[in-house]
């Protein structure tokens, strides 16, 4: 009886030990989102949405972009904003992205009930073009 009890306890301990390990998230291997050789690397992140006293939403975005074939090459970018009802709700923003300006902040102010749409266009030095749309 004692032997069986000890064996059972040992197996229980072994089982518990096996389950005490730290479980690591492995979803990071999916951070690469390009499905074909990209001409540009880019990433748009929403930094904040604040509602002001006039019941408007103030969006701030952080955009990073680069030419995939040459990190030192500049690219041209343009960001346009829209809602379902109003085209060009905020002024478009854009220019040449080189060195430090490959990371810029974008902002837009819209009525609180509206959904915001963004269209980002990136142009490369050899005529490459990428158009990407987002909604918030």
């Amino acid at each position, binding site marked *: 009886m004692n032997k069986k009890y000890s064996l059972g306890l040992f197996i229980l301990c072994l089982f518990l030990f096996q389950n005490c390990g730290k479980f690591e998230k492995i979803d990071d291997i999916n951070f690469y989102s390009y499905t074909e050789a990209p001409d540009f690397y880019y990433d748009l992140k929403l930094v904040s949405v604040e509602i002001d006293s006039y019941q408007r939403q103030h969006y701030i975005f952080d955009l990073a972009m680069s*030419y995939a074939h040459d990190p030192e090459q500049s690219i041209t970018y343009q960001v346009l904003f829209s809602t379902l009802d109003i085209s060009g709700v905020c002024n478009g923003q854009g220019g040449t992205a080189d060195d430090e300006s490959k990371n810029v902040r974008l902002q837009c102010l819209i009525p609180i009930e509206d959904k915001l749409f963004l269209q980002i266009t990136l142009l490369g030095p050899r005529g490459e073009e990428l158009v990407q749309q987002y909604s918030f």
Partner: protein
Amino acid sequence: MIQYFLVFIICIFSHFALGQEVSVVSHYPETAFVAKRMLPFTVQGASVQKVISVITHGNDSCSTMVDPYYNKIFHIFCREAGSVNLAITVESTDRFDSFVTLNNIRIYNLGVEIEEREVPFAEESEEPF
């Protein structure tokens, strides 16, 4: 015997000389180094053929990968802010592989502004959607 010794010395020196020719260039400025963003880097150098491996130290939340389409580009992705060090192994056209280290890459939380990393706002235009 002395010939072997000279060949050995030449090999050692050529290995270090190659190491100096390899450089790592970030695609994004440091202000864009934020958590949960994929950060691309290109390894440059006349003899560079491809990135073999990238190992991170100092920030357990970081993962790395070599770009599946461009073999001189690798990416790091950190779930959390903090400093990270990289040890990169590069295959070259010469006999030896090169080893490059990038130390103290600072990853920030998005939206946390500190003095030296204020991101500029984009210029406005009158373009409609």
